[in-house]
């Protein structure tokens, strides 16, 4: 699997950028210099050379008055481009004002404006332009105005859509509460935030306008003789297309070239805008790595416990994940080991960015395909996944474990019936017949306390809690030995959360499946699980029985995390415990303990050596050089 890195990803876009820039420069040059250099030649009739084909003197031939067509095409660049740009800018200005104002006016005016834009959009721009050009009379001015008007609805719709995105943001609401007036809202908050995509589509629209103006001239509605632009030249030459293709098509090639220029330019602008949107969100002080980290090492950690744990459902050692990002390769999970016995429920706790969800995905073999995974051991139900072929591994994972994701609203496919989503796994992997599968699906739904009639529903007809029950039922269909629940209740209300965690407990009791419960909620995990692993910056810093979380944590981070959770019985006059600073920059991991910069108990050694996860007693392991004393001090509770 190739790993696209920063340098390799930006490379392919640069030739396109160069091509677009060169083409644009040539057009600008042509528009500026064309009439000065070739203007005279373009207007000089030569009765002796009427309607000639290509020759050395006239590379594109001559027209019916013997004028040189190459010179005429080159000279026509200025009027063609000027008209197209003016029409686009006029249309964009009108459209943007119309569309963007929908974000700052009242709801009734907004509805009227939206209806108006919808109505105008029903008519294709070319038809509107044609109609207006007829009404306004043939001529460059009429065509320009017609085209500008015709492009207003398109711009208005775009600006309306973009502005709707801005008007839903909290900063615009805050600005409204500050009492800013409408023109100020529009100028300061709406327009600057939609300017970039608008500029982009204006570029693309310039190409379209150029083609449309050429089309009007081609029909005889645009530039009138003796003036000429590319469309008119094409119109004049069309009769000869069968006899002398090049003289006839030369203006068409010019139109094509200009249209392509604007299209490519838009493409390049869009590409760079997208890259900037994905730029790192970290403060600029964070140094970017000059070089890539060394390739993923073959894990060779402390040997000795490398034996197969027979009663374990899952056994993973030294799991490391590398992810390429636009800013460089990061290693969000570094040397995580964990194992689960049958029927055991284990919590994996950490804050955002700790690597807990990526660990879950790696265990299920569901990481994005550009991620690189290293591990010393990865056994599911005793079978070594690393030694299997891809197909065997897929079958083993599909039938051995089930994953329940955070957001049941998006984890279920909105366009498939519940029945399909429940049965397809066992029909694929267990070869179940349609009726068998349906019977099992009914049983699974009953198991999660849902009526079998839901099988015919689609996800949007269910409540959030029902959807998560369906996800659990879907996981149960394959009779998994391991259920990985990745923040399964974070998107749910607290009363529903309790129902779901109770359901998971029941399922574990009845099926003796092991459960790996991943959450950011220390209190939830403490109440639900037997054993808890605490993750920080991609490593497990502490592993302990759940009942020790409240009072007997030994790692300074775990202790701080626990104490920062407000409790219903918390003393409301005492400030909550906080941890100064933020998690380490994943792009620039420092040496030593990852928590060391924020740790109130740090000493010299912490900044130099990484502490390994070591046994304090059976069942309690901690990765800290100087663990806190065992009998805990008074905690927040």
């Amino acid at each position, binding site marked *: 699997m190739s790993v696209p890195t920063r340098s390799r990803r930006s490379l392919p876009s640069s030739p396109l950028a160069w091509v677009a820039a060169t083409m644009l420069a040539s057009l600008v040059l042509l528009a500026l210099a064309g009439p000065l250099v070739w203007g005279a030649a373009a207007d000089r009739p030569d009765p002796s050379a009427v309607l000639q084909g290509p020759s050395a003197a006239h590379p594109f031939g001559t027209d019916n008055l013997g004028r040189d067509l190459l010179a005429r095409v080159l000279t026509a660049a200025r009027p063609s481009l000027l008209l197209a740009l003016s029409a686009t800018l006029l249309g964009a200005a009108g459209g943007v004002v119309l569309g963007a104002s929908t974000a700052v006016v009242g709801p009734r005016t907004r509805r009227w404006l939206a209806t108006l834009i919808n109505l105008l959009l029903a008519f294709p721009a*070319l038809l509107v332009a044609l109609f207006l050009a*007829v009404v*306004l009379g043939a001529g460059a001015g009429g065509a320009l105005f017609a085209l500008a008007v015709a492009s207003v609805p398109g711009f208005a719709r775009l600006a309306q859509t973009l502005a709707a995105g801005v008007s839903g943001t909290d900063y615009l609401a805050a600005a409204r509460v500050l009492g800013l007036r409408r023109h100020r809202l529009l100028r300061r908050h709406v327009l600057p935030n939609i300017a970039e995509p608008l500029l982009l589509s204006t570029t693309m629209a310039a190409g379209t306008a150029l*083609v449309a103006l050429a089309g009007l001239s081609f029909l005889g509605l645009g530039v009138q003789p003796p003036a000429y632009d590319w469309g008119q030249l094409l119109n004049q030459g069309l009769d000869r297309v069968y006899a002398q293709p090049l003289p006839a098509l030369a203006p068409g090639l010019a139109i094509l070239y200009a249209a392509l220029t604007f299209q490519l330019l838009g493409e390049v602008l869009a590409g760079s805008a997208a890259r900037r949107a994905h730029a790192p969100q970290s403060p600029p002080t964070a140094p970017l790595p000059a070089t890539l980290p060394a390739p993923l090492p073959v894990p060779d950690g402390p040997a000795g416990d490398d034996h197969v744990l027979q009663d374990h459902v899952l056994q993973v050692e030294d799991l490391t994940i590398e992810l390429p990002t636009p800013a460089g390769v990061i290693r969000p999970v570094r040397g995580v080991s964990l194992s689960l016995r049958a029927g055991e429920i284990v919590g994996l706790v950490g804050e955002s960015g700790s690597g807990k969800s990526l660990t879950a995905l790696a265990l299920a073999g569901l990481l*994005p395909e550009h991620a690189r995974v290293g591990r010393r051991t990865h056994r599911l139900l005793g079978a070594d996944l690393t030694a299997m072929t891809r197909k065997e591994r897929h079958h083993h994972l599909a039938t051995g474990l089930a994953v329940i994701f955070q957001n049941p609203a998006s984890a279920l496919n909105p366009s498939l019936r519940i029945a399909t989503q429940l049965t397809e796994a066992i029909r694929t992997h267990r070869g179940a017949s349609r009726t068998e599968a349906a019977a099992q699906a009914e049983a699974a739904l009953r198991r999660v306390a849902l009526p079998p009639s839901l099988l015919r529903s689609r996800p949007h*007809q269910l409540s959030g809690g029902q959807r998560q029950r369906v996800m659990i039922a879907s996981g149960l269909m394959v009779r998994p030995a391991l259920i990985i629940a990745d923040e399964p209740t974070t998107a749910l209300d607290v009363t529903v959360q309790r129902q779901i965690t109770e359901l998971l407990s029941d399922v574990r009791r009845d099926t003796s499946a092991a459960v790996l419960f991943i959450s950011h909620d220390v209190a939830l995990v403490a109440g639900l699980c037997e054993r808890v692993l605490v993750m920080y910056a991609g490593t497990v810093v502490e592993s302990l029985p759940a009942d020790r979380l409240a009072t007997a944590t030994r790692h300074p981070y775990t202790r701080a995390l626990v104490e920062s959770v407000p409790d219903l019985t918390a003393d409301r006059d005492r400030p909550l415990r906080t941890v100064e600073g933020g998690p380490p920059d994943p792009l620039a991991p420092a040496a030593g303990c990852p928590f060391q910069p924020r740790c109130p108990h740090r000493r010299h050694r912490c900044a130099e050596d990484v502490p390994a996860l070591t046994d304090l007693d059976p069942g309690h392991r901690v990765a800290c050089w100087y663990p806190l004393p065992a009998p805990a001090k008074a905690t927040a509770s």
Partner: protein
Amino acid sequence: MTGVSDVSVSLLPRHPWTAFCVRRSARLVLSLGVVLTASFAMIRLVPGDPVRAALGVDAPPALVAARRHQLGLDQPFLAQYRHYLGGLLHGDMGASLITGTPVAELVRTRLPATLDIALPAFLVTLAVALPCGLVAAVHTRDGRRPRAELAFTAVTAGLASVPDFVLAAGLSALLAVGLELLPVAGTAGAESFVLPVLALSLAPTAVLARVVRVEALKVLAEDYMRTARGKRLSPARRYLRHAAPNMATAALTVAGSLLPAMIAGTVLVEKVFAWPGIGSAMAQSVVAQDYPVVQAMVLILGTTVLLAGLLVDGLLALLDPRSAIREM
């Protein structure tokens, strides 16, 4: 809880559907009104005297007056409008200023020819762009194969910027004249459809393929696609059963917006191929300033576009009732 969901299954579509139909019809009536009024007003808005312009400065005043009377231009404005609408109801669209033939006759012979190329062009666009976009998305997801992505982007950008009338001229020069493979113009046999359809559909196909790829990339990044991966379903099942239905709405919406442009594009393409359709009639009459014909063509093209939009919206509503109705 279960009761709630059962009720919602049966009750949900009813009210929104009525609302959808009412609103959609209201919009259609309003747009049709705009088209009717615009086509009526056009001939009155034209600078100068349209009859004199069409017949030339040397035309005898009696003839001009007669034509003016024939067009009803000497009547009060509202009476003209009533007369215009009444005429339309009886299929009377006036007569050409130049040839004197009834415009209705022209429409009857020419509209089928235009639809003969516009509809196949639309179908070709769908048939080519949808699979191409999906395949491109599958192969370039997660930033894979950056070179293939660049090639797809560059090629579709290039094709999307080829103006249909330039392409039409180029194709006729190359294939019809240069290689003598296909008929140059006219409607003789199935081969004669190839070039106009190709000219009309190439750029929209490229545009649609790009949109489909972007939509497909969005769908492939959804959580439910990860769920499908978790079930280890076959790629065919994942892409066709799980991904495709979820991008159909967006793809069809964009395709629907391309259809009117395609119908308008017939004006230029038909001119190049001398195709005896509405478009070429319009092109000719615009140049000749034969306003009754232009008026009728604007009306017909505008109405066709509106009906096509109605068709697409109805299709969308059938495919994905929730989003289509909500967006109305």
